C-alpha cells in the first residue's frame, strides 16, 4: 500500500517552513529591527493574517472575497472602541464631546468598556455575521462574480455608513489617539514590542491553522467543492456548509487582523476597510499565490511594504505598480509567485499546479447538463 499523498510539498517541509518563519518574526525581527520598522512589520503581519484567510476562502474555496474589509472593520472598530474608552476613562470620548458636549455615550459603545466583551466581540461578531451572510448566499447558490460583487458592495456600504456617522464612529477621521492597550501604556517601546509579538504570534497561529486545514480531509473536500460543486452535492454533502466553514474562518482571521491593526497603527478610518482596502488585501494574496500556504501571507507583506513605503514617498508610481501587479500576475501567473519555482526546469519538485480557473470545472459540469 502506498502512502497517501497530500497536496503540495510534504507536510513536514511546510511545517518547518512555518517554524523558520516563526523564528524570524518572533526572535530575529525584534532584535535587528528599529522600533519604526518593527511597528511597520507588525502592520504587515496584520494584513498577512487577513490574507491567510483570503487564501483559504478564495485560493482553496474558490470564493473571491472582495469585502474582507467588513470583517477587518468588525475587529478593528471593536478594539478601537475599547481602547478609546480605556483612554477616555470615565469621560465621554473627546471626538464625541466635540460634536455635542452633552450627549451620552451611544448605547452600542457601552459594552466595549469591558475587555472581556471586546475580545469576545472580536471573535464572535465576524463569526455570526459571516455565518448569516454566508448561509444566506451559499444556500441560494450565489457564487462567482455575484458573490465577489456583493461582498465588495457590503464593504462599500459599511465604509459609507461609518463615514456618515461622525458622532458615533468618528466618521472619516476615524478613531485614534489610543493611550492604553488593556492596561499597558502604548507609548512604551517594550509594550510596542509586546503588541508586535502578539500580532506576529497570531499570524503564526493562523498559518498553523490553515496548514492543518489544508492537509485535512476538510481541505480536500474544500478543493473538491471549488472545482466541482455539483459533484460534491451528489456525494451527499451540502457544498454550502463546506464553503460556509471556510468563509467564516476567513472572516474570523480578517477580524483578528483588524483588531491587532488598531494598537499597532494607532488609527482606524473607513479608508482602511472600504473597497480599495479590501482590494489591496486581495492584491497581496494574488501576488503571493492564492492557493499556497505561504503565498498569501508573504504576498500581503510585500504589498503592505509597498503600500506603506512607496505609497507615501511615490504615491503615483505605487498606484501604477499596484495596477500592473494585478494585470501581470492574474494574466501570466494566476498562481502567484509561489508557482515560480515549479516553472523553472531542473527544479522539478512534484507539485500539483492549482488550475487558474477553479470555477471552470464546475461551470463545465453545469454546462454539460444544461
Amino acid at each position: 500500500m502506498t502512502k497517501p499523498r497530500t497536496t503540495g510539498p510534504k507536510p513536514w517541509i511546510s511545517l518547518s517552513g512555518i517554524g523558520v518563519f516563526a523564528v524570524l518574526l518572533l526572535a530575529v525581527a525584534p532584535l535587528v529591527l528599529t522600533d519604526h520598522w518593527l511597528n511597520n512589520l507588525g502592520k504587515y503581519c496584520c494584513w498577512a493574517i487577513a490574507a491567510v484567510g483570503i487564501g483559504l476562502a478564495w485560493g482553496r474555496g474558490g470564493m473571491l472575497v472582495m469585502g474582507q474589509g467588513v470583517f477587518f472593520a468588525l475587529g478593528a472598530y471593536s478594539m478601537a472602541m475599547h481602547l478609546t474608552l480605556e483612554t477616555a476613562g470615565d469621560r465621554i470620548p473627546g471626538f464625541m464631546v466635540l460634536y455635542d458636549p452633552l450627549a451620552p455615550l451611544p448605547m452600542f459603545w457601552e459594552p466595549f468598556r469591558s475587555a472581556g466583551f471586546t475580545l469576545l466581540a472580536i471573535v464572535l461578531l465576524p463569526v455570526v455575521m459571516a455565518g448569516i451572510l454566508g448561509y444566506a448566499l451559499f444556500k441560494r447558490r450565489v457564487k462567482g462574480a455575484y458573490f465577489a460583487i456583493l461582498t465588495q458592495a457590503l464593504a462599500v456600504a459599511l465604509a459609507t455608513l461609518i463615514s456618515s456617522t461622525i458622532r458615533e464612529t468618528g466618521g472619516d477621521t476615524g478613531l485614534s489617539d489610543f493611550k492604553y492597550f488593556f492596561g499597558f501604556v502604548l507609548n512604551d517601546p517594550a509594550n510596542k514590542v509586546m503588541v508586535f509579538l502578539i500580532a506576529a504570534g497570531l499570524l503564526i497561529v493562523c498559518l498553523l491553522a490553515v496548514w492543518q486545514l489544508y492537509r485535512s480531509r476538510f481541505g480536500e473536500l474544500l478543493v473538491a467543492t471549488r472545482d466541482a460543486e455539483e459533484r460534491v452535492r451528489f456525494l451527499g454533502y451540502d457544498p454550502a456548509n463546506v464553503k460556509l466553514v471556510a468563509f467564516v474562518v476567513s472572516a474570523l482571521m480578517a477580524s483578528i487582523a483588524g483588531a491587532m491593526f488598531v494598537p499597532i497603527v494607532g488609527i482606524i478610518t473607513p479608508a482602511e476597510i472600504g473597497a480599495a482596502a479590501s482590494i489591496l488585501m486581495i492584491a497581496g494574496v494574488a501576488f503571493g499565490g492564492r492557493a499556497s500556504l505561504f503565498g498569501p501571507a508573504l504576498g500581503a507583506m510585500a504589498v503592505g511594504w509597498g503600500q506603506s513605503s512607496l505609497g507615501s514617498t511615490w504615491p503615483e508610481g505605487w498606484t501604477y505598480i499596484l495596477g500592473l501587479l494585478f494585470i501581470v500576475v492574474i494574466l501570466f501567473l494566476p498562481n502567484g509567485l509561489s508557482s515560480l519555482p515549479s516553472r523553472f526546469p531542473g527544479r522539478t519538485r512534484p507539485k500539483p499546479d492549482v488550475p487558474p480557473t477553479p470555477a471552470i470545472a464546475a461551470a463545465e459540469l453545469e454546462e454539460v447538463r444544461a
Partner: protein
Amino acid sequence: MTDASLVVTDLRVEFSGFVAVGGVSFDAHPGEVRFLIGPNGAGKTTCIDAITGLAKGTGSARLGEKELLGKQVHKIVRLGVGRTFQTASVFDELTVLQNLDIAAGRHRSALSLLRTRRGVDPSIEQALEETGLAGELTTPAGILSHGQKQWLEIAMLLVQDAKVLLLDEPVAGMSQDERTATGELLRRIAAKRIVLVVEHDMDFMRRYATRVTVLHQGKVLSQGTVADVQADPKVQEVYLGTADAIAVGTPNRKED
C-alpha cells in the same frame, strides 16, 4: 444489503411547457441490472435527473418507503441514491484515493474531517479491488483514461454505500474490452444493489440487461426482458435504422 426497491410511478417532468417526461412508471429491484433505453430525447437522463433531485418532477419515485421527489439533491444522496454523469465528473485535482475518500466521508463526524487521513479505509480498498483501480491509488484523477474515470465514478458510488446506482451512459466512449469489463462489474455489484443503467449502446444492453424499459418521447414504449423488448413491434419501429448504427458504436451524442 437492501431489499428495498426503486419504484417510479407516473413521473412527469416539464421544462417551460415542454414535456420531457410524460408519465413514466417503472421499478428496479436489487439483484438486477436494469436498463433504461431509448433514442435521443426520449427522456432517459431527465428521468434520472428527476429521481436525483436535479430536475423538478411530479408523480412519485420511492426507494422502499421513502419518497425521493421534492427532496434536496444531497438529502436524496443520503438516502442511498447515487449517480454518475455522461461526462465522467471526478475531481481532477485530487488523487484517486482522495476522490474515494471524499465519497466515503459523508458518514464522518465534523471533527474527523479536520484530521488528516491515516491509511486507507477498508471500504475504499474493496472498491478499488472491485473496479480494478488498485494500482492507481496515488494517480491524480485528471490523468486517468476515460474508462478509468468512469470506473472511478462507480467506485465512488460503492464507497459512498449507495443502495441505488443510477449510471448515465457508463460505457460511452469505451473500448470493447472496457465495455466487457464494465458489464461484468455491473453484474457483480448488482448482486446486492439496485443498478439502473441509461444506455444508447444496444449491444451492451443485450449482453448485460436483466430487464429493460424502452422510453420514447417521454413515455414508456415497452418493458420486459431483452427478448420481450426486442420482439416488440413498436420498439422495432422506433429503432428501425437507428439501432444498427448505434450498435456499431457511433459516439453517443449528448441527449438534450
